[in-house]
């Protein structure tokens, strides 16, 4: 019987202690943030989807279209499209497509990027009911008003044109020489050449 009462007493005691704590907590200020009206400040290192960084000197990105981000990506969510523009050194980026539905934010692309052209953004408000809304062209995101034309270096353009001309000239010469040799061969023994072709 005494066991029963001590058990009851212990129960009441533990209840009182618990209530004391909850009452104390009840009187403290709530820490809840009213989300749509207020929002948490994101940490600078927060990993949102990747973005192309604006280079203040050139007014555009520094991507060299090497494709190392695409190659290192575990989920194949990056597609880098580029083309060769006459008069511009290297390749010119035409589209940087990120499929954010499969991205796992591991950071391999950011680490692999030699010119440090990409980094994580701080964007987190990305709710949508459509899957297509998560496929971004980062180049268009960087230049929403239109991608600027790449700067053409006249010296390089001239050099390239000369090179092309020289190559064309060399090809023409080669062709001429081949034609000449063929006619010569034909003169020597037409049957042999015909048989070969």
């Amino acid at each position, binding site marked *: 019987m005494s066991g029963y009462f001590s*058990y009851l007493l*212990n*129960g009441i005691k*533990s*209840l009182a*202690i*618990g209530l004391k*704590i*909850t009452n104390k*907590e009840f009187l403290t200020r709530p*820490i809840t943030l009213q989300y749509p009206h207020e929002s948490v400040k994101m*940490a*600078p*290192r*927060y*990993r949102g989807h990747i973005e192309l960084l604006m280079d203040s000197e050139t007014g555009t990105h520094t991507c060299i279209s090497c494709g190392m981000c695409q190659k*290192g*990506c*575990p*989920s194949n969510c990056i597609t880098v499209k580029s083309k060769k523009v006459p008069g511009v050194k290297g390749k010119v980026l035409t589209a940087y497509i990120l499929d954010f539905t499969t991205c*796992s*934010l*591991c*950071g*391999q692309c950011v*680490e692999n990027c030699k010119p440090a052209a990409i980094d*994580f953004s701080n964007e987190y408000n990305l709710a949508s009911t459509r899957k297509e809304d998560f496929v971004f062209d980062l180049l268009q995101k960087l230049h929403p008003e239109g991608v600027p034309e790449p700067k053409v270096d006249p010296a390089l353009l001239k050099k390239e044109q000369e090179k092309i001309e020289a190559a064309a000239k060399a090809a023409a010469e080669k062709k001429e020489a081949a034609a000449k040799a063929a006619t010569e061969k034909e003169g020597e023994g037409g049957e042999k050449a015909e048989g070969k072709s």
Partner: protein
Amino acid sequence: MTLLAQSQLQETFELNIGPQHPATHGVLRVKVIMDGEYIVKAEPVLGYIHRMHEKMGENRTWNQFWPNLGRLDYLSAIAYNHGYAGLLERAMGIEVPERAEYIRVITVELNRLQSHLLWFGAFILDLGGFTPLMYAFDEREQILDLLESVTGSRLTYCYFRFGGVYNDVDDDFITGTRAFIKRLRPQIPMYHDLVTKNVILMERLVDIGHISADMCRKYGATGPVLRGSGVNFDIRKNEPYSVYPELDFDVPVYHECDSMARYMVRMDEMEQSMRIIEQALDKMPDGPVKAEKAPKILKPPKGDYHFAVEAARGTFSMRTVSDATNTSYRMRLRSPTYSNLSLFEEASRGMLLSDALAFMGSLDLVIPEMDR
């Protein structure tokens, strides 16, 4: 006794708990054969979120496997990062700078604290108490903010790299962590007052869910489950790695073998984790956070490598067979809760169903980790 009465006495029925059930923390299905309120046989059924992580390790390059480590045990992902980093560092013989090792230990222990706080809240929630969950999540939120400021993510961390960590910690993190420890330390006695000393909790945990040390050995249970059965085994002490030998901490061991013992082990481990973090913050030297010699494309020499770490739920060990290419020939992940769950069938025989759910909560199960 008539034949009819006898058959009624022996009548059993089958009950499915899960795969979608609030008391099972994820997609775990337990097929229970019940005799009234008592369990005759409980058979856990796995495979609902199997994602072939081991196979993925065999067709991705070593670097590309990093994000998978954050998605095994989503509550102590940094410890899993540590396991993978340690494995390849052992295989390649990469020396890790001391500052990086300290950062690793600090983040792993913060992650352990976070995991134990979540377990504490969810476990009490299993037993029917809602308030402690809110208190635990209040503290946990602080850890998540701290870790987010360093790693960039809140849950699925991908922070470690071979030969170091992704980026250095700043002064804000160090002062923030110190302030947080100061804040959490008085909270633990408060949790004990609010929860541990509560008679209802004691009634539900003391002398319930008995797991002997032999049973733990038989099923390979590790972590707080094993330490709650009176076996002093912690990878941080038994097979020291990283800078743990330089830090002074105790391994809490309880000999009662019941659910309460496992509960107490985790509560005491939080205190020890705080001690480790404080010492590591004091001892952390300046310097680089990534080995300069670490190669970008890894090709570990041919061989069989193994590395084990103490995650929040027990021993997580990784084993890989390398054939000197940029992918693994065989990747094996040994996750602690798979073993911890496997003893559930034997230990829950003859238990009341409500006790069995409390017992399952004391095992601290994370389903994505056993269903790799």
